């Protein structure tokens, strides 16, 4: 049972990180390699704001907003001129963004590990099913569920969401209708980046904050995006939880096989349902 809770918390953390990636991937068609770097930036910003203000919530909001602004700038200054070029331009560009962000983090915070403590209210543990579970893990599960619900409503039910979906399926038509496609794209990129920053802020008390913090996690995120289907929020939730559970069960019984299990899941999906496990054919048009 405790494995289930740990799996859910791993999955929700993954969802927070992957949701922004799948949003940008699905709605803009951009494979944003820099997503992990934005996540790391969020963790550093949250840590620093937390250190100076003593407030976890301020760190959470600050990281989300500042990383969203960084995302908007990246989209406006670097990505926008490349939309009509082949995809590999975007890959090279977002890879370059990783290098820029890493250097900035090195200059501002140095190479050493940083440590962010949990907010007092969430620092304790509870006994559940014979295991000691940190309250913070339960918070991550709840928070992840809230964010997924909010995103779902935003994309599927709001006017903004409708505009985003319309712009992603036929940008030219939306533009001819007199709607600001460029601004919508910038907003989507900022939203996706903000989610990466938020994920970093949420992850900060659980992990050491360091330059390499995104490298392994980001691979799992891409797996989530592929399993869940591009731009599919519900798919991303399901895929994240699936990966989280596979990992938690793997760690419990055969830790050295965890990576192999995760990749086996990916390969099996690509062979049988390359459009993603949770892709719905009616969705895109």
């Amino acid at each position: 049972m405790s494995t289930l809770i740990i799996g859910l918390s791993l999955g929700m953390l993954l969802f927070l990180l992957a949701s922004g990636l799948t949003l940008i991937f699905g709605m803009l068609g951009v494979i944003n390699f820099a997503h992990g770097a934005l996540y790391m930036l969020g963790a550093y910003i949250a840590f620093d704001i937390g250190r100076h203000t003593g407030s976890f919530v301020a760190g959470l909001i600050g990281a989300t907003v500042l990383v969203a602004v960084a995302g908007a700038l990246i989209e406006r200054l670097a990505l926008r001129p490349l939309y009509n070029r082949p995809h590999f331009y975007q890959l090279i560009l977002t890879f370059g963004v990783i290098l820029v962000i890493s250097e900035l983090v090195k200059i501002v915070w140095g190479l050493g590990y940083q440590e962010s403590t949990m907010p007092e209210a969430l620092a304790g543990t509870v006994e559940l099913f014979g295991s000691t579970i940190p309250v913070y893990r339960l918070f991550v599960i709840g928070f992840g569920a809230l964010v997924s619900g909010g995103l779902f409503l935003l994309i599927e039910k709001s006017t903004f969401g409708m505009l985003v979906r319309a712009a992603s399926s036929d940008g030219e038509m939306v533009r001819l209708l007199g709607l600001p496609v460029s601004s919508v794209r910038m907003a989507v990129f900022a939203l996706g980046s903000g989610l990466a920053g938020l994920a970093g802020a949420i992850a900060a008390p659980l992990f050491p904050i360091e330059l390499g913090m995104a490298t392994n996690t980001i691979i799992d995120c891409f797996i989530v995006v592929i399993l869940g289907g591009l731009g599919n929020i519900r798919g991303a939730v399901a895929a994240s939880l699936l990966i989280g559970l596979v990992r938690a069960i793997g760690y419990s019984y055969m830790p050295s096989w965890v990576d192999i299990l995760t990749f086996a899941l990916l390969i099996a999906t690509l062979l049988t349902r390359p459009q993603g496990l949770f892709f719905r054919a009616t969705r895109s048009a």
Partner: protein
Amino acid sequence: MVAGIKARHGRLLGALAVSLLFATAAQAADPDKFKIGGVVSLSGTYGIFGEDMRKGVEIAIEQRGGKVLGKPIQVIWEDDETKPQPAVQKTTRLISEGVQMIFGAVSSASSIAIMNIAKQRKIPHLVTMSADDKITVPNGSRYTFRTSNTLGMEQRMALSFTKEQKLKRVYGVTADYQATRDSWEWYRREAEKAGVEIVGADFAPLGNRDYSSIVDKIARSNADGVALFMTGSDAVTMVKQAGQVDLGKTRKIFGPVIADETMAAGVGPASIGVYSGVRYHFSVDNPANRKFVEAFRKKYNELPSSAAGEAYDGMAWWLDVVEQTGSWDKEKWVAAFENSVRDNSVEGRKAMRACDHQAMQDGLWGVVEKGVAPAPAYTMKIAKVFPPNAVFDACQP
């Protein structure tokens, strides 16, 4: 003498191999600089250590006025990203640029890769960080030397700690790669011989991000000791997440290299009470160390980490030996270093063994405590010093 004749033959044959020709030409012309190729991790799992090593080396060079054999010293630094492949590429490039020696790397896999190139190209290679025992084996590479700890000495200290604390049941978690697996298997065998029960053993992938499931398994076990055979980000993440359920309150957490000031800074309060082998420590009280710590603080406004101290110590020792030979002949440096003794090392006496090119030295075992300024917030305190014969096997012929 034999080596000299061989070298001359080598030079004749070398005309066939362009690379060797370059190497010989570089040696023959009187160099205007003493060039060192530094291959360290500036990114990746062990990225944190490379920068500190660079700082230590810079102090060693500054303390001798930036010169050796009357020529200015130039270090060309390269980042191997904690991976052997870039380490090989960058070492090869540095050698073609005419470096006199290679310094590095951080990860043992990279150092072993560099060691093989150094052997082929007959370039001296100094290791001050990688601890894999395979780097210094009897009759190993003629050109590679290690002045820092071996994993073997650290695992011996971990075993000795297990016995002293009278731990009955140990749970082991090991980063899944060769050197740590070998080290764990040795510890497991010896601990079982001493009557310790191994109640669990997990191997997590190198660079693992989440240990909460493993921590939960340990918490539900009846272990009274948790042995961690991992280092860098892996150790920081594991100890931090163990702290999230207060694992350290009821169990001794220890390992060959799981804590120093750098790692403890990433863990935070949960690092207090964690035991670990220590490579070097700024608190070691001797004139050489006091001088080094002062110079380091003056230049960088911080206390030297173990990576910085070991790098300084090895490089200062090596450059002194080169100076003493009064020669630009690399073979002479190697021969002189093989039998060199450094009485005034920052860690006390160190003696290079000709049989395996490993420096015999004391073993330091420490525990993390709350630090008082100017020490970092979480500081190692040396709990025990092991004499060399307690942590090294005698050289077998």
